[in-house]
């Protein structure tokens, strides 16, 4: 199944023209923009990394010392928020990646035979013992058996 990258030149590239066009337009805009030739830069900054840390945690006391970078915004809220966001991503990707065998969720990436009960099949056995837990809330018939997905990587062509 593994094949090397190949350059395909067919009609499917046609939409790419849009990307090119967009680039032309954006480039024109940039070239018309009157940037000041001087970059402010970070002259006389003690430690950019430290400053990043201060900014990330709203350490205003430290930020306002000599040799710091002015006008950097506070990022504590963003930091807290991204913690939740990453939780959400974790949650989401777990839900999606898990496989089901006979309606029971199993570990997402377990190898065959061992991982199927790794994620606490005891608990699930209690709750959903006699009922086949369909993942389909609507009653549309499911089309593909979940347990065939033994190749989680998904090969490209």
């Amino acid at each position, binding site marked *: 199944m593994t094949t090397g990258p190949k350059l395909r030149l067919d009609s*499917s*590239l046609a*939409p*790419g023209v*849009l*990307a*090119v066009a*967009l*680039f032309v337009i*954006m*480039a024109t805009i*940039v*070239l018309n*923009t009157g*940037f000041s*030739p001087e*970059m*402010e*830069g*970070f002259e006389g900054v003690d430690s*950019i990394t430290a*400053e*990043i840390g201060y*900014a*990330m945690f709203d350490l205003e006391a430290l930020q306002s010392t000599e040799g710091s*970078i*002015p*006008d*950097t*915004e506070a*990022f504590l809220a*963003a930091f807290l928020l*991204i913690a939740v*966001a*990453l939780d*959400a*991503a*974790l949650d*989401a*990707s*777990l*839900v*999606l*990646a898990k*496989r089901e065998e006979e309606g029971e969720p199993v570990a*997402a990436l377990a190898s065959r035979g061992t991982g199927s009960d790794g994620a606490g099949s005891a608990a699930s056995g209690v709750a959903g013992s006699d009922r086949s837990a369909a993942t389909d809330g609507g009653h549309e018939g499911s*089309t*593909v058996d*979940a347990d*065939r*997905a033994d*190749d*989680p990587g*998904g*090969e*490209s*062509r």
Partner: protein
Amino acid sequence: MTVPIEYYVLLSMALFCIGLFGILTRRNALMFLMSVELMLNAANINLIAFAFYHGNLTGQVFALFTMALAAAEVAVGLGIILVLYRNFRDVDVTVPTTMRW
């Protein structure tokens, strides 16, 4: 002697459009994801360049967050591609067309 900001911006735009090109022409879901990553990184280039240009760190810090979110996005994306493959035995994004019109 610093490189003028225009060049950074042009670079990032080029990267952005390359990413876009990939999205528009590639049918593989993973390629699609990668292309999106390119576009996000194009933004990062901008942010960092502009941070330097403006002389504040906001852009730089934000770039860090962007990267984190890009990772999170990829995580979810891969999950979706996984179930896509399970259902369609394929990761071609043009295959699922059961719903249209």
